[in-house]
């Protein structure tokens, strides 16, 4: 085997590359191929009927697809921003606590331990219009005497889904920002104090720039997760009522499995994967820029 000498970095990367090729790349190539065919789950032989870019053209001309696309971008923007704000607030509050921080940190991470599917079921029940926790509380407190149809009304359903997403993922932001707060060097903050900065000024011009890399990492991780949001929405509303909460992947899942039009579903899938990659590259760029600003190198 002496003749076949690979450079050491390749040997070290080889296991990762082999596994990813087997489990991610090959299926992706298969689905890329099928996106150019009229593949239907119910008729396996249709896998060999090449129809060119027909599926892509159909997806681009499909209003339902663009509606789901827009809704996914909306969810991404609203959820990420809310998570960032709440996570920042939570991390700042926890970092100021002097005693019992360990317990608080564990409590803070509580939602992270919930499986997305469990979160879906949990909020489906909490927002249930008849016996849900929210409506029960509102009615017992006398705020309203009607049952609010949280998951039945289109706008309220979207709100409920955003609530569930924010609930699960605020802790991801909080934990990363908290890690950033612990890592801030003390000198610049003290210098700011000596120079007579107010609390707000030293937060805005010293603390926040230092936290930005952490925020962008969290954004990069989460934008991937939200762009492929499936479990929570699938369980809570299943894209309903009347497609008002249909997101990209619930639409794709339904087209692929329920309507059995796998080729078409894969074509839409490819467009959405590019959306996710776009957001990730965007946040990675921001991350690199924020790091460079702090002089930490890349």
């Amino acid at each position, binding site marked *: 085997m002496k003749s076949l000498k690979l*450079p*050491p*970095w*390749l040997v*070290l*990367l080889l*296991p*990762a590359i082999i596994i*990813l090729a*087997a*489990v*991610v790349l*090959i*299926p*992706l190539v298969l689905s890329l191929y*099928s996106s150019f065919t009229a593949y239907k*789950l119910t008729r396996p032989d249709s896998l060999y009927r090449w129809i060119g870019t027909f599926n892509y053209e159909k997806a681009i001309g499909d209003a339902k697809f663009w509606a789901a696309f827009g809704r996914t971008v909306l969810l991404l923007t609203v959820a990420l921003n809310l998570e960032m704000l709440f996570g920042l607030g939570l991390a700042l*509050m926890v970092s*100021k*606590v002097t005693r019992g921080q*360990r317990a*608080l*940190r*564990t*409590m*803070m*991470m509580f939602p*992270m*331990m*919930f*499986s997305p*599917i*469990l979160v879906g*079921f*949990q*909020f489906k029940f909490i927002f249930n219009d008849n*016996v849900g926790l929210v409506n*029960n509380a509102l*009615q*017992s407190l006398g705020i309203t005497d009607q049952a609010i149809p949280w998951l039945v009304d289109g706008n309220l359903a979207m709100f409920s889904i955003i609530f569930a997403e924010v609930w699960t993922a605020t802790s991801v932001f909080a934990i990363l920002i*908290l890690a*950033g707060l612990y*890592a801030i060097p003390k000198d610049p903050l003290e210098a700011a104090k000596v120079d007579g900065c107010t609390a707000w000024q030293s937060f805005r011009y010293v603390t926040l720039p230092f936290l930005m*890399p*952490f925020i962008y*990492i969290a954004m990069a991780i989460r934008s*991937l997760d939200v762009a*492929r949001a499936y*479990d929570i929405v699938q369980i809570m509303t299943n894209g309903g009522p009347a497609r008002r909460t249909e997101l990209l*992947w619930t639409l*794709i*899942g339904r087209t*692929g499995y329920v309507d059995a039009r*796998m080729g078409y579903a894969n074509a839409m899938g490819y467009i959405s*994967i590019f959306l996710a*990659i776009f957001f*990730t590259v965007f946040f*990675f760029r921001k991350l690199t820029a924020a*790091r460079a600003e*702090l002089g930490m190198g890349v």
Partner: protein
Amino acid sequence: MASNAAHRTRRRALKWLHFFGLFLAMMVLCVPGLWVVLNSFRPTVEIMAKPPVWIPNELNLDHYRAMFGGVGEGGVPVLTYFRNSLIISVTSTVIALLVGMSGGYAFARFRFKGKAWIFVGLMCTRAVPGVALSLPLFIIFARVGIIDTHFGMILTYVAMNVPFTIWLIDGFFRQIPPSLAEAAQIDGCTRWQAFWQVEFPVAKAGIASAGIFAFLTSWNEYALASQLTRSVTSKTMPVGLLDFQAEFTLNWGGMCALAVLMIIPALILTFLVQKHLIAGLTFGGVKG
């Protein structure tokens, strides 16, 4: 001294505001979860009661008893699911960490052509959601004959976790100055020994935090598991959750009981390593 007193009141007000805000935030974070735990101990009649019963009249273990009971009484093979979940999650986490360590080491210590592109390529594999992979994987796994086996699930989860573990571990290794390992090599260690005796112990905290992320991902994953597992031989707990859902009804109490079983291991693990988690993220995050 009026300004002094005003200052003091403001401080006290801020302190109360801080306490109140923290309390409110923790309430929002914990109540939905605690509600699940509470409901697992309440009889179904009380969960569904209208008008609602706020103070539980009776708490019992009926849902747990039914769950562990026979098939006829609404029993679910929980212990088998639990064992499947544990085997699959632990094995895949360990393998993902080993693969991640070797890959992360390669990124941190070697310079080679196309490094940035290989890195971005690895990250992009994470953009592919489970739903998109499940059908092609199902077809391939069925061909190869590893559908509905532990091996198939472990393989899938390793692939899911590897990009993230490589990314985190790469950051931790970069923190360690290369001179440390070089010194050990001058003292007569091989590169292999230098890695295990010098670099590995330093990066241990970071590796632990990558491990917990990998474990939680595998432990909670649903979209792929629901397609690639068919029977009790490999079904995991998130898939088992759906056993409580019939056509039009939902055994909410039973579901809560299973959910509690799912959360306990994750909770224990997170509590044990959370200190390392913060340290690890601080490392890998900024300077990675």
